[in-house]
């Protein structure tokens, strides 16, 4: 699978006949914030392929680069992790990839472990764990410039001697040290395993004994015997559930031996590793003149201050929101204008017919929908990149976590939720900054409840129908505001419900490293914007386009027998029209007739389509621009028994419905993409539709009980 690349590098000059199969794999691992992704990008450039590991939400990135002899190498980007002792399926990916347990992921030949030089000791802990894997290792001592700037001198050769593997100082954001890294990697392709932390004797013996059995009975790679055995012995709770029979019994015995030796099996290995790396760091750091954290501390005294912290937080968030909401409007208008122009052009050069309709109403509109999201995605990811790289995102999460945790969300859920007011698509893509998969999923599930601008046309129409002409724009704004508040309550309420049901008993752990403030790198940010856009266009775009075409077909076919049929008759006779009739019993308790049903079905792909469908149904030309005419037609609409359809309760109910319903195909496609499964988007459609129906039902029925109509 990994052999197919978008940009295949030219064949090696040294060895042009080298076959694709012989490409060796280097895995890049490191703590979050260590600059691992930056180094990955610096090494591979744009020669990367983004995919997914089966069954989990983490992305699988493989890039191609060259070793020092020009030989092509695959670089496998592992998810950032603090430890191999993982606590969720997502975190387990890094461990399983390293241990060669993943079916369609190549077993790495070398591990490149990225270390933040400014936070040496804590980062070396992961190196100590990597060292136990028995694979050749290269340590990239990243951000060495910042460490030196802090007055810290690190003797790389001494550290290298202690670890038993190359230690290469580098600055990933400035592409410094890459040549040396490539040399070290090439050298290590057939290199030796590094040294490892001395473990307490009883623990080491128990692990080696258990490891031998695993190699014998479970065909484990002998290199990983110690690491696997240690992971099992030191695991908490359910982590060993898939082990049975003899190995299980042996594991129990190994744990018992360790306990009897007076060791705590949960902590003994961790202490031993930290003791080792503490020693190594102490020997390697030759001077520590300045106090590196002091600038960050002085900034934090202001930026997390009880009053000024909030002022700055609100300022940053307002600016970001304004940019995503307002600045994005400009290119979005261009895209829309281009789309209209293209449609007009096609209509002028092609004869009328089904194919032309497919092009204009299906394909061009579908592509247009996809592309319109790009400006918002680009701007939001520019800001997120800036916030992440400077270190402010961690502070923002620190400030707001207390409020978010009340409903079971995470401090880092704030930016995605805020962005969802502009559009749920970038909002859901922004949940990537949340490390904990449960917190991330909870945020994804509730983000589309936040009221986005696509609902505005629906609100405007229903408010126009609801209020007689005499009402001021203040009254209209009041209703609009009520809908926004309602959407916030719904989002936070559902987050709370999910925390109490779906994720019940799962302790939401907030352990956040606060990195020192750093200067952001424009190149890194731009690359990230580019990467997100490509992933969105390729993965979500295809789904959005195909469903746009399906919806167009549903509302076009079958064609009416009478060629002079009005658009309203055509729509009524189409599959969508028939579906409206079929669904009528379902929406009758909400006070809707089949025409509203057609509106809901046709706007499944995008909420704002509802207004367009209504104007077709009521034969109003350009209904979205000619609101009074559409309003008049809708007010005149009667049920078969003569009662008006669009009573105040129906209008309010419809607005409530559109606040709560997942009437946005693009969001479905993005959730599918971000959770790497159909399970969660389908669940989301299900719960939101149910919620929307129940909301509209309650408005209509309870309103009736109180004598309203």
């Amino acid at each position, binding site marked *: 699978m990994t052999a197919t690349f978008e940009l295949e590098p030219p064949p090696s000059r040294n060895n042009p006949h080298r076959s694709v199969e012989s490409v060796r794999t280097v895995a890049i691992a490191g703590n979050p914030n260590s600059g691992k992704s930056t180094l990955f990008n610096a090494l591979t450039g744009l020669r990367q392929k983004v995919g997914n590991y089966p069954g989990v939400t983490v992305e699988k990135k493989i890039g191609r680069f060259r070793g020092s002899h020009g030989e092509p190498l695959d670089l496998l980007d592992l998810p950032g992790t*603090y*430890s191999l*002792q993982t*606590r969720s399926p997502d975190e387990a990916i890094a461990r399983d990839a390293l241990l060669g347990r993943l079916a369609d992921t190549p077993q790495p030949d070398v591990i490149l472990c990225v270390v933040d030089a400014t*936070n*040496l*000791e*804590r980062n070396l*802990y992961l190196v100590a764990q990597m060292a136990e894997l028995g694979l050749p290792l290269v340590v990239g001592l990243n951000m060495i410039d910042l460490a030196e700037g802090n007055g810290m001198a690190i003797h790389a050769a001494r550290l290298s001697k202690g670890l038993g593997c190359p230690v290469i100082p580098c600055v990933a954001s400035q592409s410094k040290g890459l040549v040396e890294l490539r040399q070290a990697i090439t050298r290590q392709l057939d290199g030796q395993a590094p040294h490892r932390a001395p473990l307490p004797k009883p623990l080491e013996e128990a692990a080696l004994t258990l490891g031998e059995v695993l190699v014998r009975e479970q065909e484990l790679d002998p290199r990983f015997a110690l690491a696997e055995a240690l992971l099992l012995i*030191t695991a*908490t*709770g359910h982590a060993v559930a898939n082990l049975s029979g003899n190995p299980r019994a042996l594991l129990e015995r190994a744990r018992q031996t360790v306990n009897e030796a007076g060791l705590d099996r*949960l*902590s003994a290995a*961790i*202490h031993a590793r*930290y003791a080792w790396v503490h020693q190594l760091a102490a020997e390697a750091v030759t001077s520590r003149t300045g106090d*590196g*954290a002091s600038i*960050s*501390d002085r900034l*934090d*005294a202001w930026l*997390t*201050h*009880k*009053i000024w*912290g*909030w002022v700055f937080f609100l300022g940053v968030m307002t600016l970001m929101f304004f940019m995503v909401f307002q600045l994005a409007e400009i290119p979005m208008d261009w895209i829309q204008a281009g789309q209209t122009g293209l449609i007009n052009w096609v209509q002028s050069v092609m004869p009328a017919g089904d194919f032309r309709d497919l092009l204009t109403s299906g394909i061009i509109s579908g592509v247009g929908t996809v592309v319109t999201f790009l400006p918002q995605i680009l701007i939001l990811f520019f800001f997120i990149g800036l916030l992440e790289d400077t270190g402010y995102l*961690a502070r923002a999460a*620190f*400030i707001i*976590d*207390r*409020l978010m*945790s009340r409903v079971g969300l995470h*401090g880092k859920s704030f930016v995605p939720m805020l962005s969802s007011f502009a559009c749920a698509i970038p909002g859901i893509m922004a949940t990537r900054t949340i490390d904990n998969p449960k917190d991330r999923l909870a945020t994804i599930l509730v983000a589309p409840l936040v009221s986005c601008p696509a609902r505005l046309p629906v609100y405007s129409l229903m408010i126009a129908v609801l209020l007689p002409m005499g009402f001021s724009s203040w009254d209209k704004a009041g209703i609009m505001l009520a809908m926004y508040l309602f959407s916030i309550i719904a989002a936070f309420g559902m987050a709370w419900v999910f925390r109490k049901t779906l994720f019940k008993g799962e*302790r939401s*752990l*907030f*352990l*956040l*490293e*606060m*990195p020192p403030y750093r200067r952001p790198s424009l190149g890194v940010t731009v690359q990230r914007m580019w990467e997100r856009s490509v992933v969105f266009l390729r993965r979500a775009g295809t789904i959005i386009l195909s469903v746009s075409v399906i919806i167009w077909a549903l509302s076009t076919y079958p064609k009416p027998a009478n060629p002079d049929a009005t658009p309203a008759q055509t729509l009524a006779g189409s599959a969508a029209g028939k579906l409206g009739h079929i669904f009528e019993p379902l929406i009758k308790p909400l006070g809707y007739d089949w025409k509203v049903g057609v509106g809901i079905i046709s706007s499944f792909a995008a909420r704002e389509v509802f207004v367009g469908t209504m104007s077709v149904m009521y034969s109003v030309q350009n209904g979205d621009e000619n609101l009074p005419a559409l309003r008049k037609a809708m007010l005149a609409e009667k049920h078969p028994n003569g009662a008006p359809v669009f009573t105040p309760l129906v209008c309010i109910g419809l607005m409530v419905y559109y606040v709560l319903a997942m009437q946005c195909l693009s969001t479905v496609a993005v959730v599918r993409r971000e959770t790497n499964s159909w399970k969660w988007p389908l669940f989301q459609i299900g719960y939101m539709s149910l919620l929307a129906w129940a909301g509209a039902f309650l408005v209509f029925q309870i309103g009736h009980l109180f004598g309203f109509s």
Partner: protein
Amino acid sequence: MTQTIVTQKLAGQPVGRRLKITGFALPDDVHQRLLEMGLAIGMECTVARYAPLGDPMELKIRGYSLSLRLTEAEGVHVEAHH
């Protein structure tokens, strides 16, 4: 020389006081994760600050900053370190 050591919880410790970790009373997995993040019995740390709403708190340990919620900090036992 007799010395009275008063063990207290990390949550609520004043900013800037030098502390020494004396024990943990946390679920196994949370305990283990804290150890992996560099906390350990005998380790020195200081409270850098509390968030504007009083929770979470930021800790300085092993030369870096870690923020954690008070729920977890309740389960970390400390004593004043001189």
